[in-house]
């Protein structure tokens, strides 16, 4: 965003210094721009239209700034400027001359108000400008906007561009845009039929709605063709819908997995009924917040990568607290697993209130880095980046943990100690160290989960409470002490939830999942991946 704006400012300055605009026209433009300062929001729509109609490139930065709420006027003379906030003051750029006036106080200027209507109008209008941009990516974006806008007045621009466009993707979009417009116009039948074909191949909901309208308003061959295209598109949509649902389910499952994976250690392996698990997740999320703040002040350039620093930090913070907890409290409670519930519940209250006291009771803002924002459109699917990252992150964590537990001597000792502490000790295992390490590991992993979860939900003192029940559900459903169970359990519950949600609704869907868990446990009283045989008794 900022890069773009810097470019725009350069552009203005360039334009101004080598201005080829005749003086008279420049004056008109100036008036038209300054006119933005006055009148109601409704009046402003006409003024924006007028600016767009000039077709002059000078209006591009003006309107872009307006849409972003950065167009200001000087109170003294109602002159409109492009404003950039620099620290506590603003620097103003004259849209025509490109002159920069630094250090203007907020008091002296006022924002040119904008609303959604204006933004939409500007976006659609500027897309026609961008259609002639040299950057093919921009042209592509513009063509997409034009397709979405379905504005008949854009038709000449589309035709004009199509005549000289080279980029196949842009051509496709423009043709689709034209097809939509053709269909709703009074074009001849053949044109409409070929337009229907283009739209059918394009697919998607918007094509569907255009075709629906066409099918309603037309007759004969066009109506038939449109109806057939509708059926085809709907079938595709249904399929993609199913796939999308599976993805949503897996993605929800990966969140559940993340939330419960630390618990799979502290509870699943160690047998501590760890009610403070959620708070470890919360601490991870708050660490993310703190790291983000630190990076913001220390190295703003790295802000997009603050999450990468947050991961080890969260592990260390939550792990350290887990370590202290184990040494200070839990170790007195081995052999009395139920009592750990009481103690860790107390700890969870303390941690919640501590965070509330330190950071305040309200939500904290953890922003998505650029590489985790937005979505990719993949055929009929729309996959958001943060979910994709979280999904693979969860799997990676699982893999690491699995390897640690099953393939390393430390993992073996961890399991041995929890099964028979005395005997492990008599075999030379340093049980206090293993206990503390295991609990710290489980807590640290929970902390890492907090980093990921801060990307999709609240960062508040209550964060832990909202995950704790689900986490226990997952671990138990999968089978206590079985990591695979946790993995499969989390994904199963995620997918089940997402398949129930569309037709039962979110509330009933959740109830049904709970009922499903209850019934499932009747069938497999020791969870999905139950340990069988004598060994369990």
């Amino acid at each position, binding site marked *: 965003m900022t890069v773009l704006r810097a470019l725009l400012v350069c552009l203005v300055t360039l334009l101004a210094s080598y201005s080829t605009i005749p003086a008279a026209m420049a004056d008109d433009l100036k008036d038209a721009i300054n006119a933005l300062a006055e009148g109601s929001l409704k009046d402003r729509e006409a003024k924006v239209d007028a600016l767009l109609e000039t077709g002059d490139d000078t209006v591009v930065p003006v309107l872009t700034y307006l849409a972003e709420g950065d167009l200001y006027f000087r109170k003294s003379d109602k002159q409109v400027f492009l404003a950039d906030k620099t620290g506590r003051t603003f620097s103003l750029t004259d849209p025509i001359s490109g002159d920069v006036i630094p250090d203007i106080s907020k008091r002296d200027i006022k924002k040119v108000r904008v609303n959604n209507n204006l933004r939409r109008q500007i976006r659609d209008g500027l897309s026609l400008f961008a259609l002639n941009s040299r950057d093919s990516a921009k042209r592509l974006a513009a063509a997409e906007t034009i397709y979405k806008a379905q504005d008949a007045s854009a038709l000449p621009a589309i035709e004009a561009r199509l005549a000289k466009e080279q980029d196949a993707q842009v051509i496709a979009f423009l043709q689709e845009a034209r097809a939509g417009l053709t269909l709703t116009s009074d074009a001849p039948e053949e044109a409409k039929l070929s337009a229907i074909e283009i739209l059918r191949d394009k697919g998607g909901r918007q094509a569907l709605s255009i075709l629906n309208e066409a099918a309603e308003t037309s007759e004969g061959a066009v109506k038939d063709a449109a109806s057939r295209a509708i059926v085809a598109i709907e079938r595709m949509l249904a399929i993609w819908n199913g796939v999308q649902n599976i993805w949503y389910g897996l993605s929800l499952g990966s969140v559940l997995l993340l939330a419960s994976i630390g618990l799979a250690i502290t509870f699943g392996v160690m047998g501590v009924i760890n009610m403070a698990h959620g708070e470890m997740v919360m601490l991870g999320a708050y660490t993310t917040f703190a790291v983000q703040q630190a990076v913001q002040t220390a190295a703003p350039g790295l802000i997009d990568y603050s999450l990468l620093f947050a991961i080890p930090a969260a592990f260390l913070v939550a792990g350290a607290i887990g370590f202290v907890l184990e040494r200070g409290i839990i170790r007195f409670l081995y052999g009395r697993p139920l009592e750990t519930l009481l103690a860790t519940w107390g700890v969870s209250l303390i941690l919640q209130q501590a965070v509330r006291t330190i950071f305040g009771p309200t939500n904290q803002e953890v922003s998505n880095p650029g590489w985790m924002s937005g979505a990719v459109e993949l055929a009929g699917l729309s996959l958001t980046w943060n979910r994709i990252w979280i999904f693979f992150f969860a799997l990676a964590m699982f893999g690491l943990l699995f390897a640690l537990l099953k393939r390393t*001597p430390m993992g073996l000792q961890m399991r041995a100690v929890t*099964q028979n502490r005395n005997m*492990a000790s*008599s075999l030379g295992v340093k049980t206090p160290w293993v206990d503390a390490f295991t609990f710290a590991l489980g807590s640290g992993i929970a902390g890492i989960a907090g980093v990921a979860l801060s990307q999709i939900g609240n960062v508040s003192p209550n964060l832990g409470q909202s995950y704790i029940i689900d986490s226990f559900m997952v671990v138990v459903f999968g089978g206590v002490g079985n990591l695979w169970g946790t993995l499969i359990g989390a994904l199963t519950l995620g997918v089940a939830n997402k398949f129930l949600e569309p037709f039962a609704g979110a509330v009933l869907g959740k109830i049904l999942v709970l009922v499903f868990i209850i019934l499932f446990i009747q069938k497999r009283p020791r969870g999905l991946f139950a340990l069988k045989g004598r060994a369990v008794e």
Partner: protein
Amino acid sequence: MEQTSPDTATGNPVALSIDGIDLHYGAAQALRNISLEVETARITCVLGRNGVGKTSMLRAIVGQHPVSKGKIILGGHDVTKAPPYARAGRGIAYVPQGREIFPQLTVRENLEVGYARLPRKQRFVEEEIFDLFPILKDMLSRRGGDLSGGQQQQLAIGRALVTRPNILVLDEPTEGIQPSIIKDIGRAITYLKEEKGIAILLVEQYLDFCRELADVVHIMDRGEIVHSGPAEDLDKEHVRNHLTV
């Protein structure tokens, strides 16, 4: 191996000595002033009726239960207050009564837990162990808890041997084991004593087994050692009296 204790009458160094220990379970006293020495390359056997405190004594020695009085010296070091893993670090290995294998670990993993105090190079299971208990080799990937009672007992002994101890403490190791393997265990114990010079402390109920192996026997009754002497003493009437009901 450090052997700082003075040599004993038999000429072998003392690997382990306990000196006047008492042990309580809550208010109940289970051991009264027990003293005993275990020599290197000797088999020391402890006998006694049910509930006289044999297991309690072993638990005190390996550190699974604190003593209320007295001292435990291991290889010249006072380990009275040391945790079990520290004592294991000094070369003591324990085959407990009731097997105490790790039920959810496989046989292989059960054995590997014994690596904990070994240097990296020594982290393998010696073939001798599998020769002694071939069944373990067949069942490496079965879960310990699924084994039969006797198999578990074999595993418990095998696991103790994995740690390459210099003192081996066995609590009724023959319990639940088939006769042929009992004979093998007997041979193995003799082998460990003679070839490896390991000190062996054996608690047994099985008199014949004891008489065959032991160099020294101690007899316990009601938390006390009431008789100590060579294995031949077991044939004496008054000694045997301690073992009858």
